[in-house]
């Protein structure tokens, strides 16, 4: 029996989506729902062996998390603000570096291919080794950074601490940007390929300079791509865990206290998964709101650009 062509065509998108949907359900969505359910239970080490018996807490875990007068809530609020600042700066720098590098590497010159591979190196190196190397470089007494800044360039008076105290935010930012900007570079570089060369040639003939071409042709063409890229970079840096964990260990200094470390401490260190899940759900809600607002703002902007 042949399936009528109309039905086949209507069913095709669903069929194409099916594997992705099935996997997402199994590995992402069902665990997320379980995680959300966990947040309503008093799931500590007493009940971790048998979740069915863990008592329902209702909103208890949430109350603890948002009680900003208590030390836990206050630390969480501070951590949230630090993470916001960190994410914005990290995404901005990664995007700038990535886009600039991709633009500069558009024109062919000798060694361009090699440079492309070199720039992807931070992305290729194992996270643990790369971040530990930076930790060595940031050491106060024996590190490269202080050696250059203090001993060779004489830019600072004493030897500053980079892994403790206020400078730790800068150290964390440098390491994360170093690790993540190649990804932005990769994505933008691939996106630049789809802009037809004729547009540039026409603009050049009209007398537009380099910067003008970038502003008028490149950036608008990349807009849909950048919309997703910036959003995803923001979400990832908000949830960034590996880098601060390897750089600072379980206890990050206050200036670089990211939310993900708190969630890790609440869940994996104390085995209190109820609280950890509650923090994650609140984080999820916040990011959903931010994403919705971001998509609305950028889509509206796009409609204007089309006019």
């Amino acid at each position, binding site marked *: 029996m042949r399936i009528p062509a109309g039905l086949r065509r209507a069913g095709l998108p669903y069929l194409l989506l099916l594997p992705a949907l099935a996997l997402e359900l199994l590995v992402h969505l*069902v665990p997320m*729902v379980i995680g959300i359910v966990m947040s309503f239970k008093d799931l500590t080490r007493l009940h971790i062996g048998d979740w069915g018996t863990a008592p329902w807490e209702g909103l208890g875990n949430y109350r603890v998390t948002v009680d900003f007068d208590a030390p836990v809530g206050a*630390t969480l609020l501070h951590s949230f603000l630090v993470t916001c600042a960190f994410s914005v700066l990290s995404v901005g720098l990664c995007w700038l570096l990535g886009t600039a590098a991709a633009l500069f590497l558009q024109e062919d010159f000798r060694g361009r291919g090699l440079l492309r591979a070199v720039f992807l190196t931070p992305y290729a190196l194992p996270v643990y080794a790369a971040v530990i190397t930076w930790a060595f470089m940031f*050491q106060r007494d024996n590190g490269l950074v202080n050696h250059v800044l203090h001993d060779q360039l004489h830019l600072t008076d004493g030897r500053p601490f980079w892994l403790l105290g206020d400078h730790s935010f800068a150290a964390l930012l440098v390491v994360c940007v170093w690790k993540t900007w190649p990804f932005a570079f990769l994505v933008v570089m691939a996106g630049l390929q789809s802009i037809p060369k004729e547009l540039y040639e026409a603009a050049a003939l009209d007398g537009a300079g380099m910067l003008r071409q970038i502003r008028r042709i490149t950036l608008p063409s990349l807009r849909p791509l950048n919309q997703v890229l910036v959003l995803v970079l923001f979400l990832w840096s908000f949830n960034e865990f590996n880098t601060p964990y390897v750089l600072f260990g379980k206890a990050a200094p206050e200036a670089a206290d990211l939310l993900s470390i708190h969630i890790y401490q609440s869940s994996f260190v104390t085995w209190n998964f109820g609280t950890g899940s509650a923090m994650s759900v609140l984080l999820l809600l916040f990011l959903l709101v931010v994403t919705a607002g971001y998509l609305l703002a950028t889509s509206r902007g796009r409609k204007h650009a089309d006019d």
Partner: protein
Amino acid sequence: MRILRAATITATVTALAAVASGCGGGTSPGGGSDDAPGTLTYWASNQGPNVEADKKILGPELKKFERRTGIKVRLEVVPWPELLNRILTATTSGQGPDVLNIGNTWSASLQATGALLPWDKKNFDAIGGRGRFLAPALDATGAAGKDPAAVPLYSLAYALYYNKQMFKDAGISEPPATWDELVADGKRIAKGGKWGLGAEGGQLTNNIHQAFVLGKQHGADFFDGSGKPAFTSDGAVAAVKQYIDFMAKDKIIAPGNAEYGQNQSLRDFATGRTAMVLWQAAATTFAADGMKPDEWGVAPVPVPSGTPGTGRQTNSMLAGINIAVFKNTHNLHGAREFVKFMTSDAEQRLLNKTYGSIPPVTAAQRDPAFDRQDTRVLRDTLTRSATPLPQVAEESQFETSVGTAIKDLFADAAAGHPVTTASVTARLAKAEQQMAQ
């Protein structure tokens, strides 16, 4: 329409979630079974120089066990960064080993999950009785008043390592026996780029170990009788302040030590930058860093006055590895046999000698290997003056909150900010409030 669709999707996903998590998993309420008598799965911790070395060390012993009992042991050596997480997934899902090593500070928390087999009199008799084991080591196997959740396997304590040449150059003839002597010695050495004492200020567990012992010496316990945190008692504050003052007031610890977290203090000691360091078994590390055994000496950790002993004369926390059995094991008899084998006098002598630790089985301690310059001090400290860390379920939280408080105080001291009783109390109070969660 859209709401209906969203509702359908949510319902489907929730149903799937319920099915997925509801069926099975977790600890069975029973006490183990003997369904699979022929095999055992054993998760060993990494005690040797690397995982491969551990396999080479344990392999022949497991073969010996198989020849004696006919039970085949599937060994997996689990590196430390993963061990606790894997125990977590094993506890949650019910899929785990039969026998495993645990850090002895984890005993009380794992006991609280109910996943470990309690060692009541019957189980202890099966391995030779409680009396074979060192009493302090037995205290580090679970909460007081309950049956131990594990059996001591390897034990260690802290000692004071000192650089003989640096002491000689400063005209000091003997290692310090009291804290005042240590500070005085440190001050004499601390000049010209050399420092008196090394500390891992960024390593939370090390901070806790030192603070706990100092606390005991000040008569404070960090937890009161009912198991509630008491970090702001006079003794606790004095203890922490004393440790921080080595850097802040006495200036015998270099400021850079505040960020040490990867055993840099051992390296400083091995290269002659610091003259003293408080550590567990560091002989192999010193050798790997190029220091010869006759260049360093070992002494018991100082006490306020007098000689090390119990109570206020404690000078070390009792470190070590315990061996535990998962309650839902399918080879209960085999697991007990295996623990009996691992805690037998012969195996205890062999394994502890190889790993550089001290046997918690008293009979096995009589061996020349435990009478060398470092192991003798460790053994004596273990038997006479070591106390286990508080056996409370929130032990890891205690380590994180108070350890971080000490790390932050070291950071203050290193940056030149004043460290006063008030500032110490404030940080410890914050740590105590975090314990409530």
